[in-house]
């Protein structure tokens, strides 16, 4: 396709600023791509490219004659076992400038004077296997113009849409977002609440479980610490970054967190010794997970459902054989109202004997206005 400026923007006039060095920092993003996928320089401009390898594998960076990228990539591959010693840079007049193989977390620099001839000069990593994906375009022209991103055939197809981190976000079902160019479903089915994901998420250990409940309620129960960590309403998760590439990201909460816990909620018996907790797993009952864990060997089961008509959670606990009194320690958040189906509240602590602890409910609702204490 003809580019807007081809043949028209060749200019012999010296431009202001042509002599100043244009410095570009190029890093590496997950999935074999340069973070900077295209840029413009002026003909004859001094250019400095700083290539910072932010990836965990080796890369180089070559700038080629217009249209010569694929040929150079193929020539580099033909180096076969000689490639490493040559930094995968073949001898070719089509290669204008290059930065040799840069190890992870290292930088390399190349300085050059941009060609006088306007055109699109590809840059590419010729590390074997990378060159068909990992490339970009240096536009040399005096106008500083580039085609629309979506029409730019000089960059990888995957980069012609809005950046992935923006685009794939809207993978998420939640309304109010601009749709990506090609909407992708989350799954081959539509998840029906309640459902859950094991995720990395802020505010919990790396062994977190995020659960979507009906009525736009969600909570994070942490298998690493065996407790409800926080709860929110107004949505569930945006997993687009977590699911992208290597998974070097966190799931993002969609909605508003209305509860965050402070400490482990149970004390069983008089023992002051540090509770030894052990996560056991969960069972789905009508799709609701019932978590199972032990505290100093005592089995505890917990299922969380939404309250009806208010924003809140009903936590059903089962401690079939506590063998001693049980104290449930409510968090001292004055935004939450606690109620229970059994036991006695004292100073924010719910006291239950072993029989009462066999099954009881703690209801947590958002305080609407002034309410009496717990």
């Amino acid at each position: 396709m003809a580019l807007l400026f081809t043949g028209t923007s060749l200019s012999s006039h010296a431009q202001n600023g042509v002599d100043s060095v244009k410095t570009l920092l190029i890093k590496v993003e997950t999935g074999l791509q340069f973070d900077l996928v295209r840029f413009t320089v002026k003909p004859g401009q001094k250019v400095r490219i700083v290539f910072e390898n932010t990836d965990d594998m080796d890369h180089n960076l070559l700038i080629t004659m217009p249209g010569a990228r694929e040929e150079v990539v193929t020539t580099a591959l033909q180096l076969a076992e000689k490639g490493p010693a040559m930094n995968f840079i073949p001898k070719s007049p089509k290669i204008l400038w290059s930065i040799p193989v840069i190890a992870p977390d290292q930088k390399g620099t190349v300085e050059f004077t941009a060609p006088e001839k306007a055109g699109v000069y590809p840059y590419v990593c010729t590390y074997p296997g990378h060159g068909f994906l990992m490339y970009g375009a240096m536009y040399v022209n005096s106008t500083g113009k580039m085609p629309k991103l979506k029409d730019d055939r000089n960059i990888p197809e995957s980069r012609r849409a809005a950046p992935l981190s923006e685009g794939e976000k809207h993978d998420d079902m939640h309304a109010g977002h601009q749709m990506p160019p090609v909407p992708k479903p989350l799954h081959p089915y539509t998840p029906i609440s309640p459902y859950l994901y094991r995720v990395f998420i802020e505010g919990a250990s790396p062994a977190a479980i995020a659960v979507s409940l009906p009525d736009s309620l969600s909570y994070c129960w942490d298998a690493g610490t065996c407790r409800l960590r926080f709860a929110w309403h107004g949505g569930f998760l945006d997993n687009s970054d977590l699911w992208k590439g290597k998974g070097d990201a966190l799931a993002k909460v969609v909605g508003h967190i209305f509860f965050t816990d402070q400490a482990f909620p149970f004390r069983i018996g008089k023992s002051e010794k540090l509770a030894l907790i052990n996560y056991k797993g969960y069972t789905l009952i009508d799709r609701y997970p019932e978590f199972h864990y032990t505290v100093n060997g005592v089995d505890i089961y917990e299922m969380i459902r939404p309250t009806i008509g208010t924003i809140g959670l009903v936590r059903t606990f089962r401690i079939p054989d506590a063998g001693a009194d049980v104290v449930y320690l409510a968090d001292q958040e004055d935004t939450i109202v606690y109620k229970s189906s059994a036991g006695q509240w004292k100073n924010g602590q719910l006291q239950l004997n072993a029989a009462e602890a066999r099954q009881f409910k703690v209801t947590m609702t958002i305080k609407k206005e002034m309410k009496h204490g717990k």
Partner: protein
Amino acid sequence: MGNRLSKAICVSLFLLVFIWAGNARSQSYRVETIKMPDGLTNENGAIEFLPDGRLVGCFTRGEVMIYNPKDEKWSLFAEGFHDPLGILVLSNSEMLIIQRPELTRVKDTDGDGSADLYEKVTDDFGLSGNYHEYNYGPVKDGAGNLFIALNSTSPGGSMRPEVRGKIDTLGRDGSNGLRQMYSAVPYRGWIMKLTADGQLHPYASGFRSPNGLGFDSEGNLFATDNQGDWVGTSPLFHVQEGKFYGHPGSLIWTRGWNKGNPYRLSPEVLNGMRTKPAVLFPHGIMANSPTQPLCDQTNGQFGPFGGQLLIGEMNKERIVRVMLERVGGELQGACIPFLDGAGLRKGNNRLAFSPDGVLYVGQNSHGWLGDEGIQRIVFTGKTPVDIYTMNLTKTGFKLVFTEPMEKESLINADNFKLRHYNYAYHKKYGSDQMGVQSDQVRGIEISADGKEVTFTVEALQAGYVYELNLNNIKSKDGGALENTLICYTLNKLIK
């Protein structure tokens, strides 16, 4: 997985092989593509077969799906997993699945076709929240013990403020861990053994990114690893209890470890501690990111290579084949391409044989190079013209072919291009081929049936890969040799 994809691919070489092999090999093996369900992001984490012949696969977004090859329909079995990368089937309704936080027993207890029990089997290992902490397995030995592998932690990622397990920064190189793969929470970089009592035991250390566990038919455990720091080229390890396989960080979790930060030990000291790979996959030539080893125990249903290991490769449209022998008490052997191109894609991450001997291949990219989906490789019944085994002799090597070969081409030493080299053991990412030297093939002898050839090599040396390229060699019936490149890792000479 991890840096498995940090790996190069010699595409030009591959393309040549593809064109040529596509014709020759299509007569012995046929590649077919499985239709995946609409809406599934097909990054396959693992595949296995249920006893009833259905295929189970798990995927990056946490789905566990079951495929019935008879009607080609998919159904959802379980959901919500975090990066599931391994399955061990227990029954038609029950399986073990490894995910980032734990090994989980997943069971459909009420028979409605979807799982309702997600029981932790073990989570007795650290988790810093770093993206590279992928977990693999489980595989089961003859005694019922399970083995899982825990990736080292990447300097390209970070540790979360809240981790699981005790932090010990002695397992890192540099105060911020931003240099090499590391192990700052327990047992990252280890292969672990889970005994019947539910206890998880550290078994072997020194792994960087061991994305592939498997047993051979004799019960030997193997793991692949990925080229990178301390891994000059990707290896296959014969994993044995108590041994250290080379990547330093994991050493701090060795019982009784008293040598401080392992990265402060000299490479010579570390080299003396490590057990070397049974097989090296020369980078850029054989495999850049090998994955799961699977032993062909199909009794001929999948062709003539029974008892050998097939290993997926992420970066090429290739499955690699490994043949092993015991020399001086240790396993060593050769690797050779098994299938190149012929419609196979990249990202060959998981392998499983169907009950009728068809090889299914799960594909993944996961942020590195690779394709996505599932393909299967069907043996057509026509024996490929190939190297069946390569064995070391006292003075050289012996090749056994699957078919009688044409003797005129085989007797000609000019048709044998042999060279040897090794790889540096160092913290630098990968290694060039070191000490490359050509060898002269002499004394070629061919068996009466034309299926075996022996030759001698002057000054055969331990500690090198011997790379053999065969040219112009045909079968007696005129069939081209399907794979002409074979690499023997010579750790020990025959005394």
